[in-house]
């Protein structure tokens, strides 16, 4: 088990390193000099040259990448040109808002998706199964930002049930919760469909397994077999799915933050783009990518711990 975890972690580090190389190449390919762009059109050539040296742009490419990589590993993502604050601080300050949104989205999607999937599997071929099937496909298909805008339109503008913008008064938990409802609806809705489909499929497979047959032969109650024995196995692939899905959820969260004017990574980057604040954008991309890879590694290791069959797969 430890070997599997170490191998999976190593792969994660390799992926992050490659992703950083790709990001570095993209920044490197940008037309124009980052130093003069950062200083604006009114900067003197001397000022630009001084910033070039300070940013290390006068060095060879390999050295630039190494500096980029080494300082990122140390947690140094550069400083924001305008305020002079470390980018890492600026980004990490916003991360909790985005994480809260993602976690709340996943939570309600799991709470609804697993029972729906299990129900569809147990009543395979029934009307309920077909309805769950079609609805799952439908909510997966519709982009989350359209869900966000329509939710805003229906629940905040027309019905006026819920607040439209912001994250709520700090310290006022009820207020923050009501502000979280609509964004969390937009982030989670598609996942109800994904999870229901995944649970249904793996539940159908699990119900065929030999230990389930044995349990039936022993005359255990059907409810115990389905909801305890089969569902326990059927939930495992959902974990992997959620790991892979964190990237999608991050994307949905970015849109939800922009639509509902909530603080978070999405709002931060969106505002940074308008003023062409490069370091904040690349810093945020780096943080979210590392976060995504880490969640995937964690999900895989967790599934490996719960299901020994998975561990051997990485040794392909």
């Amino acid at each position, binding site marked *: 088990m430890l070997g599997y975890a170490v191998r999976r972690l190593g792969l994660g580090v390799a992926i992050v390193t490659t992703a950083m190389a790709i990001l570095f190449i993209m920044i490197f390919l940008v037309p124009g000099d980052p130093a003069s762009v950062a200083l604006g059109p009114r900067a003197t050539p001397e000022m630009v040259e001084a910033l070039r040296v300070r940013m290390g742009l006068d060095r060879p490419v390999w050295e630039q990448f190494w500096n980029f990589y080494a300082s990122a590993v140390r947690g140094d993502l550069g400083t924001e040109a305008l305020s002079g604050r470390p980018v890492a601080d600026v980004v990490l300050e916003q991360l909790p808002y985005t994480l809260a949104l993602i976690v709340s989205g996943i939570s309600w999607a799991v709470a609804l998706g697993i029972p729906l999937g299990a129900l569809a599997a147990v009543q395979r071929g029934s009307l309920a199964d077909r309805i769950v099937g079609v609805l799952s496909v439908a909510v997966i298909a519709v982009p989350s930002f359209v869900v966000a805008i329509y939710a805003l339109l229906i629940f905040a503008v027309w019905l006026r049930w819920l607040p439209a913008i912001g994250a709520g008064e700090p310290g006022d938990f009820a207020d923050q919760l009501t502000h979280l409802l609509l964004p969390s609806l937009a982030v989670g809705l598609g996942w109800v469909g994904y999870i229901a489909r995944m649970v249904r499929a793996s539940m159908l497979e699990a119900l065929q397994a030999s230990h389930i047959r044995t349990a039936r032969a022993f005359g255990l109650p059907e409810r115990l077999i389905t909801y305890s024995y089969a569902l326990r196995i059927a939930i495992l692939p959902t974990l992997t799915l959620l790991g892979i899905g964190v990237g999608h959820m991050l994307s949905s969260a970015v849109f939800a933050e922009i639509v509902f004017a909530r603080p978070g990574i999405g709002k931060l980057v*969106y505002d940074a783009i308008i003023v062409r604040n490069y370091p904040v954008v690349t810093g945020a991309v780096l943080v*979210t990518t590392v976060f*995504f890879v880490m969640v995937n590694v964690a999900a895989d290791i967790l599934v490996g711990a719960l299901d020994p069959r998975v561990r051997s797969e990485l040794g392909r």
Partner: protein
Amino acid sequence: MSSVAEPARPRHAGLAALGRVLAEPMGLFGLALVVLVIVSAVFADQLAAYNPTRMMPRDRFADPGWTHLMGTDHLGRDLFARVLHGGRIALWVALVATSISLALGAVLGLIAGYGPRWLDNLLILIFDAVKSFPTVMLALTLVTLFGPSLTAVMVVVVLVATPSYARVIRTQTMALKTSEFILAARAMGAGMGRILRVHVLPNVIGPVLILASMDIPVVIAIEAGMSFLGLGVRPPTPSWGAILNDGFTNIRETPWIAVAGGLPVILTTLGFTFLGETLRDVFDPRLRREG
């Protein structure tokens, strides 16, 4: 027993498949929506009474009605015309970007699957790394660095889609690599290019085509999403995302603009998804588990 006449088989396998798609309510519904979207985009000029970029200042923020079916926006442009023409952009991006991703994915997948082990490992690492960027963050970065444009949208789509196609092609190529007919072709002196092109590619492309058709809604969502953020198609070009953005800005006063921008996105993604799901079930049920 054998004297019983066999049921007449459709002459063409494609017709049989179409019949099976139409027999499924979901497939029929999806196909109807897709046809509706394609027809309205192709005949946008004939179906809409106005030019999508023509500004009619006296008709600003007109309610939906008989003169303007979906109303007008803040510049007095007819929303119905903009929605129909927006479909052209969406379908164009879907067609071009998906084709490029397919071609690139096929080449890289064949190389990874057939080439030396180290190259395979390197390519897989790059695919995984590219896929580890959250889509929106990738789009935001590219646009920050290179500026908003339709090309930026296509680059994002290609970067997001290519790794998945390449991976599927790679896996299948590896399975074929040691099969007898490939070995025979090699023994007869066929070069690598010829083997990949003539013998491997036709055998591995099928499932990827289905995957690509199922990705169309995703591509349309990326285009609309980026244009919504003002990072995609430049004004005054009509795009569903741009209409949504206009509607979002004025959502309290004139909510119909946001409805007009969102509705085609919803109908199109639903149509292509329902159709894609049915096609996949008909052609290749094995892909179902990758959902």
